[in-house]
């Protein structure tokens, strides 16, 4: 699909400089690469560079913290004519690095001087305070955060949609929660035991699940991966990486696959990265503002991983489902 293109009389075009570039985007923007706008939203243009695999995405965003791990922050609004199909090209610079990204023929975004955005998941980051989870659960409806918090905390909000017949949210929310609950339980147990096979099974079952262009399950899995990386579960993350990356290609949307792939490489959006580094109120507010429930679902997965990794196994507890359930019911940190 080819878009209408830029104005014909654009002349030399608009020359701008990026505010920030994510490290993954900089690595992908090799001189001479070409691509196209794959999807366009008011504040975002998702670009697929040829050949178009999960590691060939970059995203252009209007000013603000980059929500995507392969994003480029623009200094102003994106041009309205840059719709799906608009051609994209990476211009070479003098030193062999990318000098600029060109949209159509009239819009050029200089990259060389732009600072790098903080998208890497910081290892050894502090855990999520219980009050933060409670605060988030009190204001989020839909998606997978409410059911996850209900699983993780004994004092979860009353009426959390843990199964069919509960009154919170829509009927679809209740079905989503009831489908996700056993999978989240399995993911928690497997993470706690650092057991790759059941962890992979549970994570794969979440891929593509739920509403959203990046389904809620994808966001939760991305948060879980960040939780593993930040909380001492790097070995588990490495063990499931190949299987999860392969599964994503068939289980979720191309953009979801690209985001999971980036998370496996240790990169998330800037609001998520900042929250991991310092889970305070400002960071939480910025995280919850991402997408409809994307930020909240990231938080759900991240908290699940951190809580599972931070819960010690008791003597002889390995394999004891009842004991694990006891931990979930409230004995966690």
């Amino acid at each position, binding site marked *: *699909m080819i878009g209408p293109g830029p104005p014909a009389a654009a002349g030399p075009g608009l020359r701008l400089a990026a505010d920030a570039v994510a490290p993954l985007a900089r690595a992908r923007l090799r001189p001479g690469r070409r691509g196209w706008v*794959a*999807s366009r*939203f*008011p504040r*975002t243009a*998702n670009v697929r560079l040829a050949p178009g695999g999960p590691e060939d995405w970059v995203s252009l965003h209007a000013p603000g913290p980059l929500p995507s791990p392969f994003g480029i922050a623009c200094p102003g609004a994106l041009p309205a004519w840059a719709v*799906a199909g608009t051609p994209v090209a990476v211009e070479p610079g003098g030193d062999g690095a990318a000098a600029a990204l060109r949209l159509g023929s009239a819009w050029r975004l200089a990259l060389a001087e732009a600072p790098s955005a903080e998208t890497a998941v910081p290892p050894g980051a502090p855990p999520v305070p219980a*009050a*933060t989870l*409670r*605060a*988030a*659960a*009190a*204001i*989020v*409806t*839909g998606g997978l955060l*409410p059911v996850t918090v209900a699983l993780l905390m004994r004092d979860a*909000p*009353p*009426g*959390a949609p843990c199964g069919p017949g509960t*009154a*919170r*949210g*829509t*009927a*679809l929310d209740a*079905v989503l929660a*009831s*489908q996700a609950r056993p999978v989240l339980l399995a993911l928690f147990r497997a993470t706690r035991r650092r057991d790759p096979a059941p962890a992979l099974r549970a994570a794969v*079952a*979440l*891929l*593509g*699940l*739920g*509403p*959203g*262009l*990046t*389904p809620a399950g994808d966001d939760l899995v991305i948060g879980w991966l960040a939780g593993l990386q930040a909380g001492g579960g790097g070995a588990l993350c490495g063990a499931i990486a190949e299987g999860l990356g392969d599964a994503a290609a*068939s*289980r*979720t*949307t*191309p*953009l*979801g696959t690209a985001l999971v792939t980036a998370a496996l490489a240790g990169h998330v959006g800037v609001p998520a990265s900042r929250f991991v580094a310092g889970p305070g*109120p*400002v960071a*939480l*507010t*910025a995280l919850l503002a991402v*997408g*409809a*429930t*994307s930020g909240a679902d990231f938080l759900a997965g991240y908290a699940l991983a951190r809580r599972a990794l931070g819960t010690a196994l008791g003597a002889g507890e390995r394999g004891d489902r009842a004991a694990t359930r006891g931990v979930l019911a409230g004995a966690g940190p």
Partner: protein
Amino acid sequence: MIVHAAIRPAVYRDSVVLMRVAEALRARPGVREAAALMGTPANHALLGSAGLATPETARAGPTDLVLAVAADTEADAQDALAAVDALLEAGPRRPAAGRSRPRTLRTALAEAPDAALVAISVPGAFAALEARRALHAGRHVFLFSDNVPLAEEIALKRLAVARRRLCMGPDCGTAYVAGVGLGFANVVPCGRIGIVAASGTGLQAIAAHLAALGEGVSHGLGVGGRDLSAEVGGLMTGLALDALARDPATEIVVLVSKPPAPATVPTLATALRALGKPAVACALGTSPVAAGGARWVETLEDAARCAAALAAGRGFSPAPFADPAAVRAALARRAAEPGRAGPVLLGLYTGGTLAHEARGILAPVLGPIVDDLRGGPAGVHRIVDLGADELTAGRPHPMLDPAARAAGVREAGRLAEVGVLLVDLVLGRGVHPDPAGPLAAAVREARAAARAAGRALTVVGSVVGTAADPQGLAGQVARLREAGVEVLPSNAQAARFAALCLRPALATVLLGPAA
């Protein structure tokens, strides 16, 4: 149930748009459930479990957008799907051109250095921090957030008093400052009556009644529901009363609250006496407090009527009903309905203060009334505030999302013991754009279910609103009446009407002898 679906291959909309499309589809006539999601394998299972799978959805892949609706009729389902493309193309709700969206208080204050008031609506655990920053920056605070710990509230209010700045809240749902409504606010004229309210819907109800009486509000200062507790000691009520005393635009002062803690009454009395202006006080659910300096009334409507009378230099005497003849006619309509009516009253409220007021009016004549949906013995009267913290944790307030109340109304139609259903409806800015619509539809279904079972169900209500509200008072009232709701001019009158339905002998007291 009819299920239809449409597939839009390679159509990508961001998550916020997809959520809004699903909400808009659910709000359409006859639609019971709707989904707008990508056709991934996991979502096929989800659609199947939700009863939304069709042969069309089975063909969708991960790059396809699936739109599915379950509706009462074929026509409803088709109509809903016909609207899908327009909904997908509808523009996002964005701030007006030129308006920035600062992400921190510091940035906001830098962009608006002349702003005198900061409105805070962040999760309660963090709200106190932001409020403290605002007070230290010399601003008044409108603290919409709830779940702020009591100790934090006390500390904030002490800081506010020390700095002579208002800290309205926490859990302050409504305020009017110099004609600007904050939070859930009806569109009311500016005027000469100032209100101090430890109750959001109480403030709304009084302001709306005043508008109907031709009076306006100078300022309506919320102080949060706990301000007159023994722990907080009326710190902000005192400061707000003092502010209105000094305000030249305020000629009459109204104070509204739930019953104050006994320990705060002397402070309150002192503040009311020090006003130097005529005052009306309404502490719902309690008899007039022995505190001088104000005329004490028992209902929100009376508070407005008394204030308007004082402003006009007229006398005021309360009356149970504004139009006894209309009440007699409504009772006659009820008596003519076929079927036996259950003996129990169920109140399903979205406004906490209105629920409290109704309990205060009805308990003396009906006996014990419990305030939750499940507790207490069978056959007991219930009046429930569906906006209470414990029922709204993690979900929108019922003034924003009428679905939970509508479900309760439908359920009431199936309960043989319920003979009278009492409801409120709150209009204004910040609330649902058409709250009467979902309520009226649910009332129709409830009454039909009761009729089918050989029972009569009387639905009684009142509307807090003004003609200038975005929803339009007259239209909302008309929608309820068309659905069979007996709409009274105030919550107090609605509660009294409910009492008459269940205790007809009260007619001689409340209506006087029949003509």
